[in-house]
Structures are given as structure tokens and as C-alpha cells.
């Protein structure tokens, strides 16, 4: 597809960043950030995934069409998650028998 050849040096840098990201994820999981634990974990995972897509999968050097395909996949995933969760989160009282506000960590 792309004529661009990514140099092994870039791959190594990305690999090291991914390792670093993994280490930070594990470290952060053992700290208590309250509800931000999940946010941090997902943020790091997303950064890692982005690095893989951009460099290992060459999306950065790919034609616009490929980049559009990637954006679409993320967009549709977001539609599915966001609109479903929007229903759950705005129910006046979640009728289910349990709820997120557990006092497990009290």
C-alpha cells in the first residue's frame, strides 16, 4: 500500500513506549484513584492502541481512505457504546436489582 518504509528504529521506540505504558497501567491499578482508576487504565490502553495502529500498522503513512476506515470503526463503536449507555445512565432510577454506587470501597 504505502511506499513508505518505517525504519526499525521507530519500531523499537514504539515497542519501548508500549512496554512503558504496560508498566504504568499495572502501577496505576494498585493505586486508589477512586473512579479514575478505570479512566486511567482505558486512557493508557487507548494511547497504546493508537501507537500500534499508527506505527505498527502504518496507518500514519497510509492513504486517507484507510484512515477514514479506521475513524469509521471507532465512530461506530462509539455510537453503540454511547447511545446504549446514555439510556442506562439517564433512567431516573435504574430498575435493576443492584447499582454502581456500591459502597464496596467504603
Amino acid at each position, binding site marked *: *500500500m504505502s511506499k513508505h*518504509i*518505517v*525504519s*526499525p528504529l521507530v*519500531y*523499537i521506540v*514504539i*515497542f519501548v513506549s*508500549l*512496554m512503558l505504558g*504496560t508498566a504504568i*497501567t*499495572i502501577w496505576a*491499578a*494498585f*493505586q*486508589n*484513584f477512586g473512579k479514575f*482508576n478505570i479512566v486511567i*487504565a*482505558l486512557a*493508557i*490502553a487507548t494511547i*497504546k*492502541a493508537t501507537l*500500534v*495502529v499508527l*506505527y*505498527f*500498522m502504518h496507518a500514519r503513512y*497510509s*492513504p486517507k*481512505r*484507510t484512515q477514514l*476506515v*479506521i475513524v*469509521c*470503526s*471507532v465512530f*461506530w*463503536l462509539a455510537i*453503540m*457504546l454511547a447511545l*446504549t*449507555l446514555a439510556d*442506562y445512565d439517564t433512567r431516573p432510577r435504574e430498575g*435493576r436489582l*443492584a*447499582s*454502581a454506587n*456500591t459502597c*464496596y*470501597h467504603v
Partner: protein
Amino acid sequence: MHRTGDLYGHFQTLEQQKETAALGMWIFLVTEVLFFGGLFLTYTINRHTFSTAFGIGSNTLDIKLGAGNTVVLIMSSLTMAMAVWSAQVGKKKLVSIFLIATLALGTVFLGVKAIEYKQKFDHHLVPGLSFDMKYHPTHPMPGDDLTELALEKEEVDKAFAQDPDINAHGQLYFSLYFGMTGLHALHMIIGAGLLIWLIRGSFRGRFTPQYNTPVEIVGLYWHFVDIVWIYLFPLLYLIDRHR
């Protein structure tokens, strides 16, 4: 289809053929994103509702094995990327070496996964009739860390007092755990099959700077499988490690 050299008859040029194959793989990956997406949504809603049970379930997973596997898989992504590079610059021997390395790392990952599954079987944590979150804390296995186990017992007992259905809810966690990692492992196995096919090709020197499409698109697939794991690891192993 007629085929002339590397070019299939319904294409005009090699370039067109390569573009087509890559676009096809990308679009396939889009469907994969949505496929796993349905599972992630199910996971999200249930984790939201049953955070206690999910926390306990998550803490029974072996974080060392999980983290180790993460490292192994990312390394395999690196070797896969290097295989693509080797093909692009025409280092035929390196192509084979890197592909074999990728396959080896993938196999290690699957082996570790098998060990983890075996553990869950032994601990009665596989969804089904014998599922019991209280089993393992009261039946130590050789080599268990007993203080860790005592902590787990306390946690399970406490949760059980508050939620007699904790086994059902814990089973939801493990259903999703096996569902998601199982589907991921299935993708790894398919990927390993594709790698074997590539390695055979590379031994015959098939991949050159002019023609390396198979290596590239299998690479895309392999990296995608890696990305899925990048999300699975924190979502399954690291829910509640800061207790």
C-alpha cells in the same frame, strides 16, 4: 481465476491488487472491532452493575501471568512489524526469522493462557454447575500463597453476606472472561495458522520488495489481535487491584 506470476487475472496491476488486499483486511478489522464491541458493551453494563463480584473475580486472576503475556504479545507485534520491514527491504532470511519469532511468541502466549484456564478449572471458577467462588479459598492448592488466599476468603465471605447471589454475578464475570479471552485466543490460533502459511512462503523466498502483500495484511491482523489484548488486560485483570 487466471494468475500470472503474483498477479490475479481480474486485477490490472500489482499495485491495484495490493491496495485491494490491504483495504479488504482493514474493512475486515472494522467488523472485528464491532464484533468485540458487542462483548465490551455487555462487559461494561455488567461490570457497572456488579462491581463487587467483578472485582473479586478479577483479583483471582494471576497478574504475573497476565502482565507477562502482555509483554509477550507486544513483543510479537514488534517481531511481526520487523518481518514486514524485512520483506520491504528484501532481506529474505530475516523475514523467515522474524515470522518464526512471532509464531513462537504467539505460542508462548497461548500456552500461558492454557495454564491460566487450567488454574480456573482447578479452582472451580469455570461457569457451570461446579462454579463456586468459595471453593478455592477453602481448598488451597499446592503452591498457593496462603495469606493471599485468606484475604480472598475474607473478601468472598464479606461479599456473600451482602449478596447471596454473588456466585451468579461472579459467574457473569467469568463468563465474560472466558468469552472475551477465548475469542481472543481463537483469533490468535487463526493468526498462528496464517503465520505458518507465511513461513512456508518465506522459506521459498516468496516475499520481495515488489510482492509482500500477504506479510503485510497478516501483520495488520496480528497487530489488531494485539490491540484487543491491550484492552482486555486492564479490563479483566486490573479491575480492583488497589483494595
